[in-house]
């Protein structure tokens, strides 16, 4: 490859890639432009081995990036951002008297996972979701796992998200969690471990699909050669899942997606999924309960609804049963659900099982319900409710990540090594005042992957959220949302706190 940089026309995507392959020059991370600012240390790097060679499954991408003029990468990145803006893949930031729509930061470079790695992830996720569904069914029925001492009773029945109203409610196929988003990270040894289960209203799947769309357009030849497993069937699989949950005797069930409305930050995703599945997108005000059935107000009159894929939190579902001030929900909906005239997915009350303290017991629950060892391990977790473990946590605040049990989205947490002594002391007091509400984990340096930042390729921390669907069967689309902590050094990947995302390629072989 000569050092001359040619500016490429958008149509000429194939030629320079073949060109690069012929030249075969690799830019070394931390040394050669445009990888000169790329940091490699003890943290696991998705792309590079410790000897600075790229891992075999990243070689093609590395080679391409070593030779492609950065102006060209910049152009493709811009095209990708434009495409997001025009499609309205945005979230709204509300200011004092105006609001702005911003695109979710997306990094163009795919995160690549080998077929073998994926096989293990897939098996581990299916195992985990099977155990969690059995656990939820048990919680709201016999409570065997509690009686047998697997999980402390107060942890379950005292949890913020335990819904006593769900006791005795029949859930079709036992699929409490029909849509699950599980957050995985890679530890320093390169092993995938589970960081968090999202069993309530997980989001992000539309970004998984949108990222694929733009990245495939940005690197068409590389995409083709890499034999990436397709994810595009997700909406059809979701529809099949929901259909399989319909009340018996409803030949052609009417399935709707219930959204909090246009002001919700995930509204784009709701419209996207409804459109892709060809189902009606409804708001609470579109639904009424009439004669013990849930109906939607249509121009022709009322039409019965059979399955509701809800993207609304438990609290807001029905003002008669949960929060009375909810204007987003449907009065009487829970009663219909409990009597089985309508199915709600995900089921209510799932939050009790994705609680950060219950998380620590999931490997034991897998063993208890399935008689198997967990394929995907947990991150080591200290429960502050246990006095001995609390002492350990308080003595090691500078090494640990401490999290409030019922919170999500990266809120209510302390990242010990990155906090000041004052912040640690203040957080320590919070923990001491209410130890039941906190857990702690060792600071795992999430693995890093190459990202395009300010005209260079740099490494940033990433996690992975695959999506698992459970109806008549459990399926995992090969891929997921890779979230990126775009701020240098940051470990927080949540989009509400400066995180972005990138496409995830699972290779066929």
């Amino acid at each position, binding site marked *: 490859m000569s050092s001359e940089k040619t500016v490429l026309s958008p149509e000429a995507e194939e030629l320079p890639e073949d060109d690069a392959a012929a030249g075969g020059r690799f830019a070394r991370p931390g040394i050669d432009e445009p990888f000169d600012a790329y940091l490699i240390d003890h943290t696991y790097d998705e792309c590079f081995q410790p000897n600075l060679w790229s891992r075999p499954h990243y070689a093609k991408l590395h080679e391409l990036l070593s030779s492609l003029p950065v102006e060209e990468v910049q152009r493709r990145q811009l095209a990708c951002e434009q495409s997001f*803006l*025009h*499609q*309205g893949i945005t979230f709204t930031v509300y200011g004092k008297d105006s609001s702005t729509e911003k695109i979710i930061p997306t990094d163009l470079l795919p995160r690549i996972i080998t077929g073998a790695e994926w096989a293990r992830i897939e098996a581990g996720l299916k195992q985990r979701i099977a155990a969690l569904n059995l656990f939820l069914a048990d919680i709201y029925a016999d409570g065997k796992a509690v009686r047998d001492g697997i999980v402390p009773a107060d942890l379950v029945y005292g949890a913020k998200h335990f819904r006593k109203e769900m006791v005795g409610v029949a859930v079709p196929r036992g699929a409490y969690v029909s849509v699950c988003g599980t957050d995985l990270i890679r530890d320093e040894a390169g092993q995938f471990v589970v960081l968090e289960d999202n069993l309530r209203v997980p989001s992000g799947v539309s970004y998984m699909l949108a990222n694929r769309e733009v990245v495939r357009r940005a690197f068409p030849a590389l995409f083709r050669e890499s034999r990436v497993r397709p994810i595009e069937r997700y909406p059809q699989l979701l529809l099949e899942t929901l259909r399989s949950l319909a009340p018996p005797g409803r030949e052609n069930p009417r399935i709707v997606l219930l959204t909090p409305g*246009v002001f919700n930050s995930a509204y*784009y995703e*709701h*419209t*996207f999924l*409804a*459109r892709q599945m060809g189902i*009606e*997108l*409804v*708001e609470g*005000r*579109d639904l*009424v309960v*009439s004669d013990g059935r849930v109906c*939607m*107000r*249509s*121009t*022709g*009159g*009322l039409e019965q609804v059979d399955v509701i894929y809800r993207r609304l939190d438990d609290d807001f579902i029905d003002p008669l049963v949960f929060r009375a001030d909810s204007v987003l929900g449907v009065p009487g909906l829970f009663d219909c659900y409990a009597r089985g005239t309508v199915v709600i997915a995900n089921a209510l009350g799932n939050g009790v099982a994705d609680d950060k303290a219950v998380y620590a017991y999931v490997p034991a629950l897998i063993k208890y319900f399935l008689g198997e060892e967990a394929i995907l391990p947990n991150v080591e977790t200290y429960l502050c409710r246990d006095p001995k473990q609390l002492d350990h946590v308080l003595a090691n605040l500078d090494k640990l990540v401490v999290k409030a049990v019922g919170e999500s989205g990266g809120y209510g947490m302390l990242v010990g090594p990155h906090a000041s002594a004052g912040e640690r002391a203040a957080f320590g007091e919070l923990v001491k005042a209410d130890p039941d509400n906190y857990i702690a984990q060792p600071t795992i340096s999430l693995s890093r992957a190459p990202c395009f930042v300010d005209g260079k390729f740099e490494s940033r921390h990433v996690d992975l959220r695959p999506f698992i669907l459970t109806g008549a069967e459990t399926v995992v689309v090969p891929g997921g949302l890779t979230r990126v902590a775009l701020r240098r050094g940051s470990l927080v990947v949540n989009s509400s706190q400066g995180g972005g995302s990138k496409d995830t390629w699972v290779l066929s072989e």
Partner: protein
Amino acid sequence: MLSRVADSLYWMARYMERAEHSARLLRVRLEAMVSQGDLESSEEWRRMLHALADVQADDPSADPRDITFRVAFDRANPSSTLRSLMAARDNARQVREQISSEMWEHINRDYLKLTAMDFDWAWSGNPAQTFIDIGDGIWMFQGITHSTMRHGEGFDFIELGTYIERAQLVARLLDVYLSPPQEDGPKFAAPGYFDWINLLKQCTGFEAYCKVYTAQVAPRKIAEFLIFDPEFPHSVRFAVDKVQSALEQIAPGAPQTRRAACARMAGRLKAFVDFSSMDEVAAGGIAPFLASVLKQCEQIHGAVYESYISYGIEDLVKG
């Protein structure tokens, strides 16, 4: 289809039509300012503002630049072109899954373009071209709608919104040219030769008129053309016919009693226009005729709401 969705589609179309109308009127005015040299003619600017029901229509201090800003770009003016387009896009966003991606991306792009536009920059170049571009963008949206969306009930609500809005906008425009001065209404000088031509242009009708009546400029023929021509898309009759046929398609499953109210009103308006002639209208006074068209459009709007959108559940039980 969901009542809320029907409501949003209907208003999306109405706001689009309104935005296009104001852009078109401005474009014709700005072109006239250059080509016909009527730079000083505040009378025609005032006429335009009355046609758009602008609240500051009679402000004598406004110059063309101020007026153009207010009518097109002022975010504080709820009926400016910009605000209409924003409202249309807001409605589109609320039914994002009901319209085609092509429609959404087009309206979203136009919205992003217009909200980012710098007025001083637009004014300093060729401002008429700005409004040609805006209008073309909206026509393209209407064309994309025709070509990419299923022509089902949602489409019928779009048609209904487009044409009920158009009937009213054209009727109001004709009123400021054709109606004799009312005692309590605004007073205009009688339109001159160029003003009649501009009226046709404001309805995109100059060329179409010439094909029917030749280039002979006769106010009565112009009135006849813009009210009664059955084939010209910006005539009152054309719009009224479309309103009636859209209503025939809407909510086939709704109880007959509810459908009948809308059908009766649309049928009455259609008959009112169909069975009038220019002679009768001229004899009975053109102002009352146009006022009646406007009022009947309002009634149809109300009936559609009562029957399909904001009906009470108890009414439904009664059928």
